């Protein structure tokens, strides 16, 4: 496939890795923000090509992983209400809520549909006027334009039986929260290429400046990721801290203005809880008042349904890059993709799931485990 295959060319990957080895002088900790990048790093073993001075820390950029347990509980509650059809991206179904997950609710008879696009959910609402169709609107800035369009069309078309359970989160406030955390070890960031495709680079400049930390917008294929690391290492070695675009084939400095306008029309900034991390001010999106009629929490009176995070797994520390999955006592034993205890074990982009799939035979120190 064009724009995929050539970015997986081992020879080019090798050349880039050699460039990084040539450039690096000192040890550096670099965080890749997006779960898609983490998955590619594990899948293609890109970290094994890097010189020992470079340590990759995996970031919280997996919306499935950071959606708070309270919102999962609300989705499960909604799915159980009469006449409700809950539409969700497939990844959310096995995320554990306080008592069960959506998949279990579905097996118990709730009408839960997996959709590919929010427009599919809107279409289901129009085709089933006797049902209440609720779309579970999770995601980062990348997904917000699609969800905003479904809402705009619902309003335009007067679709009264459509609503959304909003759990949108934003990347720049999460980067700041990580940088402000005591003991933060991150010295450079690979920013999420598709989030920046939508939002552009502007929001990152004050962060790079304030924390004197380079932020390199990076894509998702092996060549993209090594190019991002190369740019980041070059800045670190030269003592620079700029916002740099290493994913120019998709990211324009100003982002996608059409998409930004649509987000702006439908959503406004809101404080958000992040699973395992806690409340981050102004780190999410909520509906603007003209769209409150589509708010599932208001329509179904779910404001009172609150829940606290279970304390047993290390997801919070893993999501902030303070611990690696194998350091968790549950990893690979009580917690597997089939029986996840924490959200990062659920989605293919969750860091625990990526480690389980590609690194399960390594111990906490990174050496090969003995035994079966």
């Amino acid at each position, binding site marked *: 496939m064009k724009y995929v295959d050539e970015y997986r060319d081992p020879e080019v990957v090798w*050349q880039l890795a050699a460039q990084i080895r040539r450039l690096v002088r000192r040890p550096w900790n670099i965080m890749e923000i*997006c779960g898609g990048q983490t998955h590619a790093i594990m899948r293609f073993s890109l970290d094994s090509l890097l010189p020992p001075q470079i340590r990759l820390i995996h970031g919280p950029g997996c919306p499935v992983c950071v959606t708070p347990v309270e919102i999962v509980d609300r989705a499960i509650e909604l799915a159980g209400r009469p006449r409700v059809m809950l539409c969700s991206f497939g*990844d959310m179904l096995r995320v554990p809520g306080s008592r069960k997950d959506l998949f279990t609710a579905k097996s118990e008879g709730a009408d839960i549909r997996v959709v590919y696009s929010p427009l*599919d959910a809107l279409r289901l609402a129009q085709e089933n006027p006797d049902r209440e169709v609720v779309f579970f609107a999770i995601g980062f800035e*990348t997904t917000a334009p699609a969800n905003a369009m479904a809402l705009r069309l619902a309003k335009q078309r007067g679709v009264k039986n459509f609503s959304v359970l909003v759990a949108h989160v934003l990347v720049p406030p999460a980067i700041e929260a990580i940088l402000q955390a005591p003991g933060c070890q991150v010295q450079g960031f690979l920013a999420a290429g598709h989030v920046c495709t939508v939002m552009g680079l502007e929001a990152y400049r004050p962060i790079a400046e304030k924390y004197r930390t380079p932020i390199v917008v990076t894509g998702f294929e092996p060549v993209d990721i090594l190019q991002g690391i190369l740019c980041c290492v070059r800045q670190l070695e030269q*003592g620079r801290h700029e916002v740099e675009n290493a994913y*120019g084939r998709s990211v324009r400095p100003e982002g*996608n203005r059409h*998409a930004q306008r649509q987000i702006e029309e439908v959503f406004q900034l809101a404080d958000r809880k992040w699973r395992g991390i806690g409340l981050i001010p102004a780190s999410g999106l909520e509906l603007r008042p003209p769209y409150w009629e589509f708010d599932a929490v208001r329509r179904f009176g779910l404001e009172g349904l609150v829940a606290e995070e279970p304390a047993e797994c290390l997801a919070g520390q893993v999501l902030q890059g303070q611990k690696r999955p194998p350091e968790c006592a549950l990893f690979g034993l009580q917690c597997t993709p089939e029986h996840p205890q924490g959200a990062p074990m659920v989605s293919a982009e969750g860091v625990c799931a990526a480690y389980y799939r590609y690194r399960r035979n390594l111990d906490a120190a990174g050496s090969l485990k003995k035994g079966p």
Partner: protein
Amino acid sequence: MCLGIPGKLVEVYQKDELPMGKADFGGVVKEVCLAYTPEAQPGEYVLVHVGFAISRIDQDEADQIFSMLAQMEELADSAPELDSPAPSPPSWPTPQ
């Protein structure tokens, strides 16, 4: 979750007042919404996320990394003393 797949637009049209198109993803053709890339034309590649094209892929930008590496190869090949170790990079002043 923020997965974006490059697809080649094979058709563009209007449907229910929305610019839409058909994109070919390595042989699989799917309908995509072009509301955020209304300028996209058939033959162009767009990056698609949950059924929406979020950018048009810039071919010149896409070529850059490969031409940069090719240039470096050439430089390495034309270096006079291949056996000697590469010189250390200059030390850069730290901008204040």
